[in-house]
């Protein structure tokens, strides 16, 4: 565990140096503990793969006091078991008409399209981080066989709901945006809806499983093609 300066009112806590469920669990536990320890002096937290950015109110406290409070609350961390994140099931319509790169990805992997779908939907992912855009959740780890590098030329527009793979990460695009990930399907659930409460179906630390659905079900759930 290392605690570094990040800025005039920010410290960054490193809880490991690689992405793994164990490290992510520690990040989650640290986020809960730091939030409780800093209370109203905390402005924001950014949990990620192996780190936690802690932003505090510099008018109410200072970096020495925050360092001391963070260290103190982490000293007892090992004893408190981290809460296991919820498991969220997201339906996905896997088909070349919904995932433009599905066939190319299967060919590259030496698998059939059905095998790619089985590999992508056959395991549970963890939400390692949220960022890039509102509601963009980085999920890992994707089965090595279907891991695929980003496209050489990113698309100008990836539709909302696109389910995509980049290296061993996967994600559902929360809004239409440019993007270079490999598209394998579409999810009718909105990953970010400012009008909904909560605005996102998942949080960092949650687990996600993808459930294959057919075209009719996708459309019935409000999906668009």
């Amino acid at each position: 565990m290392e605690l570094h300066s990040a800025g005039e009112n920010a410290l960054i806590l490193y809880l490991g140096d690689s992405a793994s469920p164990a490290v992510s669990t520690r990040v989650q536990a640290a986020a809960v503990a730091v939030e409780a320890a800093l209370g109203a002096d905390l402005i924001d937290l950014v949990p990620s793969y192996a780190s936690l950015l802690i932003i505090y109110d510099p008018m109410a406290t200072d970096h020495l006091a925050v360092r001391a409070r963070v260290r103190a609350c982490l000293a007892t961390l090992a004893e408190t078991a981290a809460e296991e994140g919820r498991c969220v099931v997201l339906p996905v319509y896997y088909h070349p008409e919904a995932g433009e790169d599905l066939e190319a990805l299967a060919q590259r992997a030496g698998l059939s399209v059905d095998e790619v779908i089985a590999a992508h939907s056959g395991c549970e992912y963890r939400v390692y981080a949220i960022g890039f855009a509102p509601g963009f959740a980085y999920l890992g780890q994707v089965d090595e066989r279907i891991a695929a590098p980003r496209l050489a030329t990113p698309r100008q527009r990836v539709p909302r709901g696109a389910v995509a793979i980049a290296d061993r990460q996967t994600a559902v695009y929360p809004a239409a945006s440019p993007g270079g990930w490999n598209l394998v399907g579409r999810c009718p659930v909105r990953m970010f809806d400012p009008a909904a409460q909560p605005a996102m179906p998942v949080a960092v630390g949650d687990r996600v499983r993808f459930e294959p659905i057919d075209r009719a079900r996708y459309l019935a759930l409000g999906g668009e093609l």
Partner: protein
Amino acid sequence: MSLRVTQPGVLALLQDRGRFGQHRLGLTNGGPLDPTAFAWCNRLLQNPADATCVEVSFGGLHLEAGVDTSICLTGANMPLAINERECEPWEVHPVRAGDSIALGFAERGCRAYLGVAGGFEIPPSFGSAATVTREQIGGLHGGKLQAGDLLPCATRRDCQRLYLSAEQRPHYSSVATLRVIPGYQDHHFSRLQQRRLFSHAYAVSARSDRMGYRLEGPAIACDIDGILSEGICAGAIQIPPDGQPIVLLNDRQTIGGYPKIGSALSLDCAQLAQLTPGGAVYFAPITPYAAHNALHLARSYFNSQTVAERKP
């Protein structure tokens, strides 16, 4: 009751102090690039410190008042005219329904703040009215102001005509020195590379915006190519593989995987954001203690300033 946008100019955005505590949804801060000028605008108008103003970048915003109220312009030196009569910035001016309000283009600086008595009445999204165009969140419709937009505000006829004397107003130049708190991956930059950053002038690139200011100058090399994506605080100085620093500002992405050498002081980021492409930037390292003191001194200085009232 409102002010109507008759000409939007280059980039005009409704901003309050910013959106905080929402990074876990991936939402960034937004808010004024120059918080000091923004704070003066609301203070002169006797508004709450978080009241919503319009941040005008470069200039060219024209409005028509649909209500009797008062306005104030602070920040970059942008000519202000009410009914084609030139008016002093950093001063509260009454306007009547039907009056035209026109901003010219910045002669010095880049960001100005146009406020109204009581603030613009914008319903908050995720706790703030701040507009972030990349996220399409905040303001009236998540985007920059457009011709025909109505900026809601109340009738106010009792606003004191406060002003800040010319000597007290900030000066905007074409040079900014950024005090930097070393941190993040600073240990992955050799002493030579750190000295290079702290001893050369960099120029503001044309590819600079509210997300970040890209700088051009001697390339800074890092021992590592990338890192596991991690949280990015305001002012963080990111060094991508080409070695050209990017100072990340209010609309930055909340996480990223490029190494960072430290973060610039917010007070100096405000000066940076007042630069236009070609402006010169220097870096100077400071300790977290000095940064903390600088923030408190600036707050104390702001609070200790007295303002005068214009008597008709």
